């Protein structure tokens, strides 16, 4: 028999977690499992902690509570740079429920917002107060998240693209995000992340290296396009085969980097 435990603070909720419990955020992942009778847990832990839904300015960083929904991101002027990724998640009803914290936990091929956050070098603040890079968090994916810390990108430095067969709402063939930082007119310290190209959102270091010191044009990005899937083994699923994902990735990477319209 399933048990639901509700705590007033995120700290208390985190303290109640064990391997038989699942933390309920917006419900889009966990209630799905409940409806299908997932036998791997027998407790749902949740919190009524209102601070989880807050968006705060913390110095140069924005702190986005784990309970902030995709709809709340779309309504926030401070988070307008995340709007393309938040809009890529589900339809309006899902966006009213799906949370930032849940998106970090979403199984392949979901988790489009996490791709954007990974390219933006977001930091995860756990319920305990511990902070760790999103890449490290995705590698272990456990614990209860309190918030995400992210710096606002400058100007047009940030790009996001979701590739799906159905529009406006469809599951990812892949999603891509790039933070195109520059130094003296050339790309420098660029971060590129993909979704639906591995079991979790991943950084693509071969592409990042190939973009170092080049100019953002067809000639400059040629080496990066050649390295588009280096080190990756994209999964097969009902949306697309791994072969197809590998074949089309350079095309979508070019469109992402050069800001080309796909239609």
């Amino acid at each position: 028999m399933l048990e639901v435990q509700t705590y007033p603070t995120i700290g208390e909720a985190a303290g109640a977690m064990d391997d038989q419990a699942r933390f309920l955020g917006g419900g889009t992942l966990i209630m799905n499992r409940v409806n299908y009778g997932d036998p791997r847990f027998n407790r749902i832990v949740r919190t009524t902690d209102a601070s989880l839904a807050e968006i705060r300015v913390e110095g140069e960083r924005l702190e986005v509570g784990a309970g902030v929904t995709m709809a709340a991101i779309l309504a926030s002027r401070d988070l307008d740079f995340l709007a393309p990724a938040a809009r890529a998640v589900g339809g309006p009803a899902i966006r009213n429920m799906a949370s930032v914290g849940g998106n970090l936990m979403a199984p392949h091929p979901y988790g489009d917002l996490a791709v954007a956050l990974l390219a933006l070098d977001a930091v995860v603040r756990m319920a305990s107060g511990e902070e760790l890079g999103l890449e490290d968090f995705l590698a272990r994916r456990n614990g209860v998240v309190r918030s995400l810390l992210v710096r606002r990108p400058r100007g047009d430095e940030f790009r996001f693209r979701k590739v799906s067969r159905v529009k406006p709402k469809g599951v990812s063939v892949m999603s891509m995000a790039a933070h195109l930082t520059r130094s003296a007119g050339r790309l420098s310290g660029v971060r590129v992340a993909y979704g639906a190209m591995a079991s979790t959102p991943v950084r693509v270091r071969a592409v990042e290296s190939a973009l170092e010191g080049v100019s953002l044009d067809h000639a400059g990005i040629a080496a990066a396009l050649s390295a588009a899937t280096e080190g990756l083994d994209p999964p097969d699923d009902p949306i697309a085969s791994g072969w197809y994902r590998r074949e089309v990735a350079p095309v979508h990477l070019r469109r992402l980097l050069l800001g080309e319209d796909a239609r």
Partner: protein
Amino acid sequence: MKSPVTFRLNGSETAVFVDPGANLLDVLRRGCGDLSPKYGCGQGGCGACTVLIDGEPHVSCLVLAETVAGRSVETTGGLSNGPDLHPLQRAFIEGFAAQCGYCTPGMLMAAKALLDRNPNPTRPEVEEAISGNLCRCTGYEPIVDAILEAAKQRGAA
């Protein structure tokens, strides 16, 4: 152990006992006897169970029932005023926007949420508003047309 939950259902104060982990759709259908929201996929993928919570669309199959305590829930069951159908319902009938009808309650609630916020939507805005609702027989064109027609009728009223 069941827990008591009180909320407003289509404007009426409602109290039900819910099982731990029960979703809102089950509680509406089995606990409250409101059979208007439909069970489609149980994964939030089809939108047949869409209801409004505090005016915003939610897929009720993925809402933990106890989280609606103290909130307002609207379903298609509360759309008409006695024999007077809601403009959306009239437009769906007149525009043949319901064939088998299974997706219709979800479509209507997604459309109501849109028109309540944006009385004069564009076609792309309507398409976006129902993008989480699957239809597998009527086809989307008559549904989008009906929602635009309902907006026009409401504007003219």
